[in-house]
């Protein structure tokens, strides 16, 4: 077990981070990474912008009481170049549905953040039996002209960390090459994650998910970082209004768009309570 300092704002606290079990499933002919850790009822996580080039403390919090299963989305770290064969919305949704099944998440609770949130919502809408309870962290998928989401791709490189996290260091930590990483392939993999998200969401992030929200029967928790600079907070209300099943909105103080990076404890606690 590896000990690492936790959030820099709590320098006194140390959290335990250990590596998850890694396996691979074949999705559309592409070897796709699935992380698994912990024991207890299953809960899945579909990552947001940037994907998961490394295991994060948020997943450890979930793994304390649950079996956490984290399949990589196509093109995201661990997902190879799977995005390159997904040409439209239907391709993405079907791939995600298959991934949920291949990862052993059928009928389990499902969490999706940002990009992964839009896809988790689709799966819950179209295959109600696949998802028990749903938690969405600032999901993409809707677009309101009067209040558009930020354009995550039209950014100067140095503006990205503060756009995605309340504390930019949390993003930098996610993306910093670990010791021994391939100095050529690592940056390419990070760009690929951004490309995969763009392939699915370019240019506005509007997947017309609004049309399918009424099909979501699963009880849905909507988590929003108080300092989300990508997805306006009002979108939480739009989701809540559109979803057919019961829903609840939870605002996370001190968190940005990727709330699970900024406030892993708070976000995990809320999700664990919702899916208990």
């Amino acid at each position, binding site marked *: 077990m590896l000990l690492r300092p936790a959030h820099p704002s709590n320098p006194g606290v140390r959290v335990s981070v250990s590596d998850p079990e890694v396996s691979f499933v074949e999705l559309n002919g592409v070897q796709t990474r699935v992380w698994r850790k912990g024991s207890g009822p299953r809960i899945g996580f579909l990552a947001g912008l940037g994907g998961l080039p490394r295991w994060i403390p948020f997943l450890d919090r979930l793994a304390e009481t649950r079996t956490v299963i984290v399949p990589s989305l196509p093109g995201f770290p661990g997902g190879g170049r799977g995005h390159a064969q997904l040409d439209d919305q239907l391709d993405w949704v079907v791939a995600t549905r298959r991934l949920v099944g291949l990862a052993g998440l059928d009928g389990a609770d499902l969490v999706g953040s940002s990009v992964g949130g839009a896809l988790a919502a689709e799966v819950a809408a179209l295959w109600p039996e696949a998802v028990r309870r749903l938690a969405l962290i600032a999901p993409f998928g809707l677009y309101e002209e009067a209040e558009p989401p930020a354009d995550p791709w039209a950014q*100067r490189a140095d503006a990205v960390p503060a756009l995605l996290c309340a504390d930019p260091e949390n993003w930098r930590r996610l993306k910093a090459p670990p010791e021994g990483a391939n*100095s*050529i392939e690592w940056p*390419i993999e990070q*760009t690929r994650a951004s*490309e*995969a998200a*763009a392939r699915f969401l370019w240019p506005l992030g509007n997947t017309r998910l609004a049309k399918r929200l009424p099909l979501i029967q699963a009880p849905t928790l909507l988590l929003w970082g108080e300092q989300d600079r990508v997805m306006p907070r009002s979108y939480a209300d739009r989701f809540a209004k559109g979803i057919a099943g019961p829903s609840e909105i939870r605002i996370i103080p001190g968190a940005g768009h990727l709330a699970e990076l900024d406030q892993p404890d708070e976000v995990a606690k809320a999700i664990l309570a919702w899916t208990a």
Partner: protein
Amino acid sequence: MKFMWFHLMPYTELPDDFREKHPSVWVDIHSSLFDPKRAHHMYNDFMDELEYAAECGFDAICVNEHHSNGYGLMPSPNLIATSLARRTRETPICVMGNSLALYNPPTRVAEEFAMIDVISGGRLIAGFPVGTPMDTCFAYGQNPSMLRERYLEAHDLVIRAWTEKDTFAFNGRFNQQRYVNIWPRPVQQPHPPVWIPGGGSVETWRWCAEKDYVYCYLSYYGYKAGKAIMDGFWAEMDRLGKDRNPYRAGFLQFVGVAETREQAMELYKEPAEYFYGRCLHVDGRWATPPGYVTEATQRAGLQSQVAKAAGSESTLGKGTQERFAGTAKDMQGIVDRGYVIIGSPDEVAEQLREVATSLNVGHFMLLLQYGNMNKELTKYNTRLFAEKVMPKLKDLFSEWEDRWWPKPMAAAERAVLPDFTATPRALAAE
């Protein structure tokens, strides 16, 4: 050696404090900076200049496509090209070109290019750029992750539309059309020569070699920055067993000719600094939509010995922001780095001979108008070049055949064009 006169059609009245007050010349440049009545004069001056270049004896005149761009006022180069087809008689017209993925359906390009080829009597060079990130992904909203695949598919569709004799169905990944059958069909058979402007990617070089297309490196940073790219291109042609025919390649170069070098420095300082200072002021936000640069090219950029050897002069594998940020913006730097070649006719001819031979390019695409250069100076530069520089270099590469040049109808077969301009009789009588 071929000398092609290229116009970007820059808006010539961007304010002096443009760099300080405005984030970008491209994509979100503010509409308040555009005065349509001033632009009326600009367009007409620019078209006069292109026609003048034809009159002076340049081998071809060139136009290109940009969108939401303060230095390129040709969202549709085809409109200009058609007008040029009527106002010139012999000179080939190079449209450099149509960004294939932006046309829906792409058969529109096959049709419009065929129209230009027919109207001009077979004088068209058909350029197919992928298009810059600013033009394609941002101004036109194309998905950067699918842009290249769409481009390649559109290319296949256009070529088939030009060459297949019967109506056919196209069942593409991105385009489906039940009845493809364009009218008109091009004069040049099987189709007009295809030229590909591209960056320094190995995939593009291989593709050009496979298809037997001309590869053009259109950079604003001159021959010093372009050397590494063209060396890479020729090394790849060697590997593929292709000959070193310099007409396989085109290269863009800014030039300013005057009686003396000092005079050239003085005359072209303002337009050059306007271009490199204002026209290339592009917000870094628009530089690198993910997926626009292929992974193979990213990899090459990250590991290339070529890039390392060429050091900071090389643009290989660098994003737009990086390229724009480190550029010279003062005349001395612009000239020292080779962005603009200046001098007396003899000096310019000597430098261009050196560039043509060291890069091995048979098609020079010359920018003799740039930035806010006015018509008078543009014509001076153009005429001096045509009269005093061109003859000195004309014979270069005469041992090679240019297989990629338009093959127009014989003059005797072509329509007789009226003398322009057509003024209503009532007005003309006044």
